[in-house]
């Protein structure tokens, strides 16, 4: 792995880099086929909507607790991120626990200053 790949790969978690994407489609002389998605579904975290009642929630996967399953971190406009612990069931489906504040190493909620 050259310096570029090493550097950037460190910034991406697991499967983000491993997924094959649509490489086959890019061999088509007409150009890559547009991605198609199923109808979107809202995600639950515990008994609430993930990212509910926030200002501009922005989700990203990151293994917060080091258990090998990437959790969902939800940042927002005020700069006060939360996270929802992810577990994978026997059928492979992911379920999310209720969101809680993301604590820094001083055990206080992280606060990315917004104006």
């Amino acid at each position: 792995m050259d310096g570029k790949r090493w550097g950037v790969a460190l910034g991406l978690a697991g499967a983000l880099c491993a997924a094959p994407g649509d490489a086959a489609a890019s061999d088509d002389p007409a150009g890559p086929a547009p991605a198609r998605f199923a109808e979107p579904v809202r995600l639950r975290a515990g008994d609430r909507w993930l990212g509910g009642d926030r200002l501009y929630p922005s989700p990203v996967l990151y293994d917060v607790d080091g258990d090998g399953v990437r959790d969902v971190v939800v940042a927002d406009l005020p700069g006060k991120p939360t996270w929802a612990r992810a577990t994978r069931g026997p059928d492979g489906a992911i379920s999310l626990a209720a969101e809680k504040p993301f604590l820094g190493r001083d055990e206080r909620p992280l606060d990315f200053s917004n104006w």
Partner: protein
Amino acid sequence: MGSQFVDLDLDGHLDWLSATFDGSPHLARGSKEGFGAPEQLLDAAGRRIIISSFWDWDAKTHKVDGRALDAASPPQERCVSAWAHDMDGDGDLDLLLGSYENGRLYVQWNEGSREKPAFTGRNLPVAAGGAPFALPEKMTAPRMVDWDGDGDLDLIAGSFGDSYGHEGAGGRVVLARNVGRDGKTEFAALETLIPASPKGAKEPTRPDAGLYADAVDWDGDGDLDLLVGGYSMWTPEARSLTAEEEAEAERLTKERDEVQAELARAGREYSAEVRKITEGKDPKSADLLAAVAEARKRYQDATAAPRARSKTLNDALHRLVPAPARETFVWLYERK
């Protein structure tokens, strides 16, 4: 704020890179004990990294500075997103900076090393398909991910769209494939992954505005799905009203409008009073701050009853005539 978990100084711990609406990137440095308190990321000269528009924490005001764009009259663009990526293939991480206004993308070169980044403080516009990268409906945050599986990192980005109105076009998610060679990043023209929302739904059906996207293999089937946060905006279908209910709705609307006009008048008087108190005075003086606080308390006391009445009227009205709704969620777009 978007998020990137990246080992910015190659110390073996992921750091948390972001940017907020104060107009600068912030970094929470990682360690084995966790993340430290976020701090502003600085350039090689120790200056705050900006595009042009930013919130001055000391002066408590918004400012525009053209130093990072080499422009005496720079476009008023605020950095609200940041991503570390080796754009030129030299082995260190450069900074991609995204603007809110115009949805521009800039690169700030790292002239240091992988271990000790030294950002130049100067931004250069990034192109996509030979034209300046732009999301006129305002960009939320870019991310780099190997979307097409060709081994290099492509860019996906969300946009805000009209985040408040229920009729203006909403946000979307775009892709810019990396078609560069020899480790250098070059973006092809933008492709749409999720089209701009037309809005107008009667229930939450998708994120309509303020779309922040991450590309993840959520279901473990080997392709990349999209996880998208944002606002859903909808108006529930109104039911048929009886003649009595219609009359009641009309009465509630009339009274509600009168109360809100009263509140608007009070708001204008409060603003005028604050202007009078602050005009020509030192904005940091204790006397001025106390006078403003007193004026605010008088305004809040005077408007408490009409504000409560307005809410009561609105609640009763919306039991008859549904109000437009706007709530945040995170959505999964599973790749077919």
